[in-house]
Structure formats: structure tokens, C-alpha cells
């Protein structure tokens, strides 16, 4: 098997590494680069646990061919906030009780971030449509939706300042 060189930006940092043609993006992020925040729940694009943002859009990294990330900007949960300065979504997920087992959380937050990056006034339905591909078995989704709404408000308020 021929290894290919993949170059892309991961959380703002330029990456260059060898991948197999059959590798998916989640293989690269989790196994090769060790960023295990992104989870793998089904391996078939059916649960959203592996959601990352690629060029501004949420994707299931378990079915995106790794090579498709060539020259792309990829964001994962590790790249959107630090413990000193969390992303507002991370704060509101914590404060609104949107996190239980936490396995869906990284993907859920990345889906929500892709939405809020382009829309700070989403409707409840838009939020539901955004996270409909992210299965959560713990929360019943309501607190997650509330957390996304609250994060939108926070972001809006900080922007208006």
C-alpha cells in the first residue's frame, strides 16, 4: 500500500504526515495524532460522536477519507478552548447540565460550534436540525439545546460589546 502525504491545518497548526489511502479522518486525528477528544461511536456516520469541523462545516470524521482533509482547516474539541479560556459552548454545556456520560459531548459541541460560527441567533428548530445527527442517549437533548441557545447569547453579548 502506498502511503500518501497529508497536509492540513489541525486546530490552527500545520500538520504533515503519512496516511493510508483507506484511512478516515478520525483514524488520523485519534490514532495517528493522539487527539482522543474526538470519539468514535459507530464508525458509520450514524451517531455524530466523531464530529469535527472541516472548512467551517461539521462532518463525521469516521467516514471522511483522510485525504479529503488535504489543505483543509480542521477543528477538533481540543482546539476550541483552554481551561483558562473555554469556548462559551464548553461553559454552557457544563453549566446547563448538558453533559452526562460525555461521550457525545465533543461531537455535539463541534456541531453546535459550526452552527454558531455562522449564526448567533439560531432558532430552537435550527439547533435541533444541527444536532440531529449527534446521538445522545443520556440527556434527552433538552439541556443541550438550552446550552447552545445560552452560548449563542453569550457570544452575541461579547460581540456587541
Amino acid at each position, binding site marked *: 500500500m502506498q502511503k500518501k502525504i497529508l497536509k492540513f491545518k489541525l486546530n490552527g497548526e500545520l500538520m504533515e504526515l503519512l496516511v493510508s489511502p483507506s484511512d478516515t479522518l478520525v483514524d488520523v486525528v485519534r490514532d495517528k495524532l493522539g487527539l482522543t477528544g474526538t470519539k468514535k461511536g459507530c464508525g458509520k456516520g450514524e451517531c455524530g460522536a466523531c464530529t469535527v469541523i472541516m472548512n467551517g462545516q461539521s462532518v463525521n470524521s469516521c467516514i471522511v*477519507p483522510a*485525504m479529503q482533509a488535504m489543505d483543509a482547516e480542521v477543528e477538533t474539541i481540543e482546539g476550541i478552548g483552554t481551561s483558562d479560556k473555554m469556548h462559551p459552548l464548553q461553559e454552557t454545556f457544563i453549566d446547563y447540565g448538558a453533559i452526562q456520560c460525555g461521550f457525545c459531548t465533543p461531537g455535539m459541541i463541534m456541531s453546535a460550534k459550526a452552527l454558531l460560527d455562522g449564526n448567533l441567533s439560531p432558532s430552537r428548530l435550527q439547533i435541533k436540525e444541527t444536532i440531529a445527527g449527534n446521538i445522545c442517549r443520556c440527556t434527552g437533548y433538552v439541556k443541550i439545546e438550552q446550552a447552545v441557545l445560552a452560548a449563542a447569547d453569550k457570544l452575541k453579548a461579547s460581540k456587541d460589546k
Partner: protein
Amino acid sequence: MLKDYILATSIEEALVCLKTYAGQARIIAGGTDAMLDLSAKKITTSCLLDITKVKELKKIESMDGQIVIGAAVTHSEVKNSDLIRTKAPLLAEASGSVGSLQIRNTATVVGNVVNAQPAADAAVALMALGAVVEITEDAGTSYVPIEEMYLGVGKSKVDSTKQMATSIRFPALLPGQGSAFVRLAQRGALALPMLNVAVVLSLCEDKVEWVRIVMAPVAPKPLRALEAEKYLQGAVINDELIAKAAKIAVSEATPRDSALRGSAEYRKEMLEVLVRRALQQALTTAR
């Protein structure tokens, strides 16, 4: 065994590559199905030829009353396109009901047709729009009506190891034309349809100038309800006629028993409801 992955930068490059690999390379776009099929060993190929970086394939354009959607255009791009939302709203609706947002962000509309699944939402809408697929290969370019694209379940006229579906095109809806896409599924997202129906209807004054009714999955490919269409053509449409047309449409369909998504009997009866609802909705939007 997969040995290579090539990111094509132009259609020409892709065609050269197909030729070089002589049947051992395979075109993919979003790759959402291809990666799964590869790991499940449903398909084998030596090389994946990715066309998502080909700029000319990423456009949604309006040309002489035709809308052209490139092979690398995703469902999300179609759903959010103002052009599609105003000139082919049923397609926006159909693309918007595929899988989940993450899938829609990578899977392509043309891929939805080339995959040749009998109930692919966008393909059903495209058939109602009278879409034509542009197929490019070494020998030149040809145009194939979407209805002729299906050779069997999961089997497309386009051989992705030799040819490339480069775009799909259809006439933009005009004033007096209405459309609808309706769907019955077991949940609000991440669900294949138990049934889907697309209708495009053209009114001339009060009469039906023409209508296309497409139903799925009720046959190995999305199925035109030709008899029902004929029945409505030229008629002054009303609820009674719509109800009759829906019954005729059902008589043309042969849905199968699905252990996962409903019995044949249920699907038949629901088909009548869906066709009726789609026609009513299309009529409302046409007026």
C-alpha cells in the same frame, strides 16, 4: 486492495487518471458511502479518485432557464442555495432530509443519483424536475435523462471506473409551476424514508399543463406514476381528481415488504396518502 488515493484538480486530470488505471480506479465525491462500502468489501478498487477539489464541479449555476449542479456540490449547498430554494424548492427540501447535517455537508447530490439507491431523496426530487445527467468520458460528453440512469438497485448507468457524472441539470420552475417533496420516515433525522414522493406540476390557467409524480421506494428505482400523470394532464384539478390520481399512482407501484421500514401493504396505502398530499401541496405552490 486499495493502494492509492488521488485528489483530482480538474476533470481532464480525472479522466486521464481513470484511463491510466484502466478500470482499477474509482471516482468518489463525498465518499460517505464509498468508505463504508470499501471497508465492508462491497466494492474493491485500487485507487480512489476524489473529485471534491475540482473547482468547476462545485458550482450551482443558472443557464438559459436550466439549473446546473456540479458533481462536487453537497446536499447542504443545495439546501442552502437561494437559487434552488426559489427555483426548485422540492430539491432543497429533499436534500435537506438526507441523513444528518454532517452527512449533508459531505455527501453530494450527484452522488445521490450515481449511487442508484431506489429511495435516495434528492434523486427522487430530481426525477420530478426532469433532470438530465451529464456524463463525461474519454470519448466525449453525453446527456442521460435521470430515469435512464438506473440499471438496477445500486447499479448506475455511470461506470465510475470509466466515466464521470460531471453535473446534473434541470429546468428552473416557472411561475405557475408548483412542487412538493413529502416523506414518511420513522424518525425526524438519520432515517431512510419508508416512502418519499416528489411532484412538479405546471398549471396553465386552471388546467394541468403537465405533472410529474415520482415515488420511492416502490420499484428498483424511483418510479414515475405515468398513468396518474396522464390522468391529470389537461384536467381542471380539484380534490376529487387528486384523490383519484393518487389511487392510480398506487396501482402503478409495487413496494416490497421491508422488515425494517414497513410492509408492502402499509407502504401501498401510505403511498396514496403521500401522493395526495404532495399533489395538494404542489397545487398550492403553483397557484
